[in-house]
């Protein structure tokens, strides 16, 4: 594959940043968004993937449901997909009015993997909106802007298919600073990789952010890696199905959440790298066939010395939902729809 000239890419990115990057306040008139939604006869679903989020899930559902379902009917449903919480996450979510599904109970004939991507794939099956919003459930400072900010570009511009969030994360930066962009995995793994092969996508400030909204017509045609690779896979797939203009990104100001350990970030990076390399081969950026060991080796120091900890880590992928017979039956799609590019 021929790479594009750096100057062309830089100009394209600059133009996109001017035309497709917004601040959430642009969409703060939620009544106007509701009018747009009604005009397009659209339904909007909010999906929250959870695993032991009892400290934050109650507030997320309470605030979003009160403001964006009861006060302004922007959302039609809030769906929680839980991958086996051992705390009160499911009970609390149901108490505050969400539809709660256990991942194991959705499409049981397809089995279950453990991972965020698996939850999102199953959420797509159980929710019904033509626009689907995904928001992580560990946000400590949730506000309605996290949802209406993401929905706004999709309602305003029919050519936008996929909207990503970006924000400051004050736990990762010193007081008074603004963050440089993404988190550690983004800046140390994803951005360098994108810069090497798909520099157009470096325009996205936080390509791994867990808050995004997309049209069902796009999501149902995407494969879902079951783990951490789901976000980067979506970006590469949507980009190759359309263009940079298929995306928009929205500044949500500040997101406060718990920080992950370096060990956990290492596992995340390992999964993301596997997904990226697969996609880079698939789209012809890397021509030779790559093979790799699916085991992450992490060295840990103990009083007696160092120990090598091996973690087998594979990122299997779920097929596009439109190819799943149960889904096609549910939405009334024919098998021909599944092969439509």
């Amino acid at each position, binding site marked *: 594959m021929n790479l594009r000239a750096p100057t062309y890419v830089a100009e394209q990115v600059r133009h996109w940043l001017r035309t497709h990057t917004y601040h959430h306040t642009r969409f703060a008139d939620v009544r106007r968004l509701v009018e747009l939604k009604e005009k397009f006869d659209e339904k909007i679903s909010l999906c929250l993937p959870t695993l032991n989020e*009892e400290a934050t899930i*109650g*507030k997320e559902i*309470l*605030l979003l449901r009160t*403001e964006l379902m009861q006060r302004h009917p922007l959302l039609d449903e809030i769906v929680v997909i839980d991958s086996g919480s051992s705390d009160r996450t499911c009970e609390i979510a149901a108490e505050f*009015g969400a539809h709660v599904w256990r991942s194991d109970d959705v499409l049981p004939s397809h089995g279950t993997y453990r991972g965020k991507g698996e939850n999102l794939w199953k959420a797509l099956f159980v929710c019904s909106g033509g626009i689907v919003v995904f928001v992580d459930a560990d946000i400590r400072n949730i506000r309605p802007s996290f949802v209406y900010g993401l929905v706004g570009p999709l309602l305003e511009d029919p050519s936008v298919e996929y909207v990503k969030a970006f924000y400051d994360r*004050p736990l990762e930066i010193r007081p008074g600073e603004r963050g440089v962009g993404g988190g550690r995995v983004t800046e140390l793994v994803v951005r360098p990789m994108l810069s090497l092969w798909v520099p157009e996508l470096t325009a996205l400030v936080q390509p791994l952010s867990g808050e995004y909204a997309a049209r069902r017509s796009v999501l149902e045609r995407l494969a879902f890696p079951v783990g951490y690779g789901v976000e980067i896979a979506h970006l590469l797939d949507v980009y190759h199905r359309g263009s940079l203009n298929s995306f928009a990104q929205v500044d949500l100001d500040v997101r*406060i959440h718990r920080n992950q350990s370096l060990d956990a970030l290492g596992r995340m990076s390992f999964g993301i790298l596997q997904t990226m390399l697969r996609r880079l081969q698939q789209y012809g950026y890397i021509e030779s066939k790559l093979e790799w060991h699916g085991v992450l080796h992490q060295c840990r120091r103990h009083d007696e010395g160092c120990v090598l900890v091996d973690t087998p880590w594979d990122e299997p992928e779920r097929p596009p939902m439109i190819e799943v017979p149960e889904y096609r039956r549910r939405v009334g799609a024919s098998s021909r729809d599944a092969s439509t590019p």
Partner: protein
Amino acid sequence: MRFLEAIESLDSIRSQAASLRDRLLSHAVCLGETAAATGQESERAHLLAQIWSDAGLEHVEVDDFANVIALWPGEGGGSPIVISVPLDTLEIPESEREIQVYPDCLVGPFVGDNCVALAVVGYVPWLMTALGVQLRANLVLVASSRSLGAGNQAGLRAVFQRIPWRPSAVYCIETVQLGRLNYRAVGLVRGSIRCQIPPDYDWARYGASGTIEAVAEVITGLVQIPVPQRPLTSIVLSSIHGGVAFGTVASETELEVEIRSESAAELERIRAAVAGIVESVAASSGKRLEWSIAARQHPGALDAGHPLVAQARRVLEALGQPIMVYPTTAQLAVVFEHQLPGVTLGLTRAERRVDMGEVREKLEIAPLWDGMTQLVLNMIGADEMAVA
């Protein structure tokens, strides 16, 4: 609905109040996570004004003090009734302001002080409308700024100085504790004693010392001031700051002191005694000592048999809530300063535990519906009294 009918309809009022759960909790969380340090309440004030407007209140305004004032117009007749809630809270960094929401409780920094009360009182008129209650007197809601510490209740004082009418009753509302019935306000004098080493201090003099020793001498004097048990009086040493490390002499030390008393004469006697001790230590130590007063409140009280007190007690008894009577140091003193009748009531229960950290509180949700019912009943009763 009249007071006697209302007191027979507790269950229906409670269930109407409970139907507001999600809206109230949502507003309380947003208010609680919005900064409102004393003197810097503007952001919370404007958010509250929006919430109160959405709740159907009229003429909602944020004044120059960042007080929020709103009106629920009556049918006509009687002097206005005022509900007042403190707006400010202690300063908390943004990343630590999180409030957690569970089906039975809220957990967060100072969640009992006072975001829940701010949200709840805004919906009391909505609740009364849903119950078919229309007051004849105007109901005026006030969220008062600068209520804490050196703020000296400046917001509420400004409101009372500004309004051209005289309220028939003032209800001071705190989030916790449900069952409190305060109708006595303790007077107080809050101030700080600052000790500094003057520039010309002779460090070579034998026995030369820093400022901590001088302040310790002041404390020795303070604890020897006679304090009567009746009228209820106390001297509280609130905080002390000074010094850096071993090997250095503290060049400045500050001691915060609060004098509380039900007697204005006792307050003045102790204030003068503190001033005398400070002056005496300054003279003997050669250090600069200054006693500056940051806040003053005068003591006051209603009779235990006052109709407002009797009515509030009757409502709590009807709700089956144990009644807690004790003097308060908060808004009520300003109410009495202006020769107005008033009581302080609480809305729910909360606890602060060592294992939750210094500032986090756990606030129960279920008792709130009794707390709101209590407010509705008191408003109906106060309205009947105002018209009579």
